[in-house]
């Protein structure tokens, strides 16, 4: 990024505490920037591609290989980590299967009632444009592709800022950075090698593990839609722009009957998990942990534990956790 562009885009963020109300009122999303965001969503859904990307948070850098093939029956996707302990994720439609060879565990997760693309798109774009100011930046090269840079500035401090690099020709997202309220980099994804379109062998989508051994533990989330409000659980208030997008009962880490509420501002999601305290051995202490852009906060309510996970600032995550109530 050029210094001139950086200062133009990020100046309001740097002096956020003083200028926020003004900058939020003045800031306008350019229509062409919103169209770019729409192109990115569509490209993720419609394109077949195969490549290698790096994920960096703090001092850690991990390389992974990803393959995405769109077939008549829908998209199929496979992710394989190349550094350190192997891990493999396969998505077919709305089902995600995670192979964790280090713990010989297979996790199966299905999203009940997930709205298909593009039905969800209009809603998502509306939410994003209400909570972020989207601006077009310069043209920069990533992984050999010329990319349009997009900056998503948060309109308040309850969400993070993002910079996106999308291929000029296809709209494919090649690089994404997440910044905190001090404009410091929290994490980034970037393709180092990518092939868009063309024939991609089906064998690249096949799971490598599992077949090798029969001693794997299978954990099915068994997620079903639920009305947790009817069971007495509510979120008293939520950070501006976040609304409930899913409410489920599921299994997490082998513990069944866990309530799961998902809030989203169109880009960032915050999950609230509600589970019986009896499932915790030893009993944890309330508190916050962070990795990259993810914050996790845990606290007890009566004989239950509330765990809130989100790619949002600690302030938002704690806000949501503190707003969880049981009323009957």
């Amino acid at each position, binding site marked *: 990024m050029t210094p001139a562009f950086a200062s133009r885009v990020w100046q309001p963020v740097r002096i956020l505490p003083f200028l926020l109300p003004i900058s939020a009122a003045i800031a306008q999303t350019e229509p062409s920037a919103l169209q770019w965001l729409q192109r*990115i*969503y569509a490209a993720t859904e419609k394109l077949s591609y195969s490549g290698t*990307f790096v*994920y960096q948070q*703090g001092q*850690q850098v*991990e390389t992974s290989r*990803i393959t*995405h093939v769109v077939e008549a029956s829908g998209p199929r*996707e496979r*992710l394989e*980590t190349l550094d350190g*302990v192997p*891990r493999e994720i396969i*998505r077919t439609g709305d089902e*995600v299967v995670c192979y964790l060879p280090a*713990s010989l565990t297979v996790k199966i997760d299905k*999203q009940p009632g997930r709205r298909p693309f593009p039905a969800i798109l209009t809603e*998502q774009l509306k939410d994003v444009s209400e909570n972020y100011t989207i601006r077009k930046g310069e043209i920069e090269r990533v992984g050999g592709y010329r990319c349009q840079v997009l900056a998503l500035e948060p309109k308040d401090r309850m969400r993070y800022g993002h910079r996106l690099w999308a291929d000029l020709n296809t709209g494919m997202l090649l690089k*994404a950075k997440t910044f*905190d309220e001090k404009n410091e980099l929290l994490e980034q*994804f970037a393709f180092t090698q990518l092939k868009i379109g063309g024939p991609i062998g089906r064998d690249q989508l096949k799971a490598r593990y599992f077949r090798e051994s*029969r*001693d794997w*533990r299978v954990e099915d989330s068994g997620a079903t839609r639920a009305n947790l409000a009817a069971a007495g*659980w509510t979120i008293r208030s939520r950070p501006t722009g976040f609304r409930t*997008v*899913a409410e489920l*009962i599921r299994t*997490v*880490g*082998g*513990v*069944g009957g866990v309530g799961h509420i998902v809030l989203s501002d169109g*880009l*960032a*999601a915050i*999950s609230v*998990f*509600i589970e019986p305290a009896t*499932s915790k051995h030893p009993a*944890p*202490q309330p*508190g*916050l*942990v*962070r*990795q990259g852009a993810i914050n*996790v*906060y*845990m606290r007890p*309510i009566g*004989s239950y534990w509330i*765990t809130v*996970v*989100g790619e949002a*600032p*600690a*302030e938002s995550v704690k806000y949501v956790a503190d707003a969880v109530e049981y009323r*009957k």
Partner: protein
Amino acid sequence: MKEKLSAFIDGELQGDGLHEHLGRLRADPELQRAWDTYHLIGDALRGQISLGIAARVVARLREEPTVLAPQPQKKGASGRLGWYLMSAAASIAAVAFVVWTASPGWRAEPQLAGGAASTTVGAPVATLASGVPPPEVENYLLAHQPYSHTSAMQGIATYVRGASDERGAARK
């Protein structure tokens, strides 16, 4: 003790460790129950239990109402299977906890006071004295990931987030 048992069943105990554990297993009824449970779970996963039994268990579990209210739960015969599974899960978590405490990926953050600005810790901490036990963070993160709307732009790429931790765990 249960993590030893699990290692024993997996054939990872040898020599003195094996003899010592056999002695404990003979003397401790709780360990014996866990032994039975582990084998039952193992058999179920390998598909060696007749479908009839498995189907009945599944049907029974489906009938169990999901109690999601902060009240003391009644203990009864119907809770036994749950107890076994829970103790199995807990012992697996305990094994994982030993490994994960040295994971460099997650940082414990100081408590936020009264909605003040979030704070950043400069260096990773070796152990998480407070906060969520790391193996559970992994479970919650995986459960959260499909709903992360950034995945609408990045597909399943965001699943690498937890993987850095698994890698940290392996280094230990």
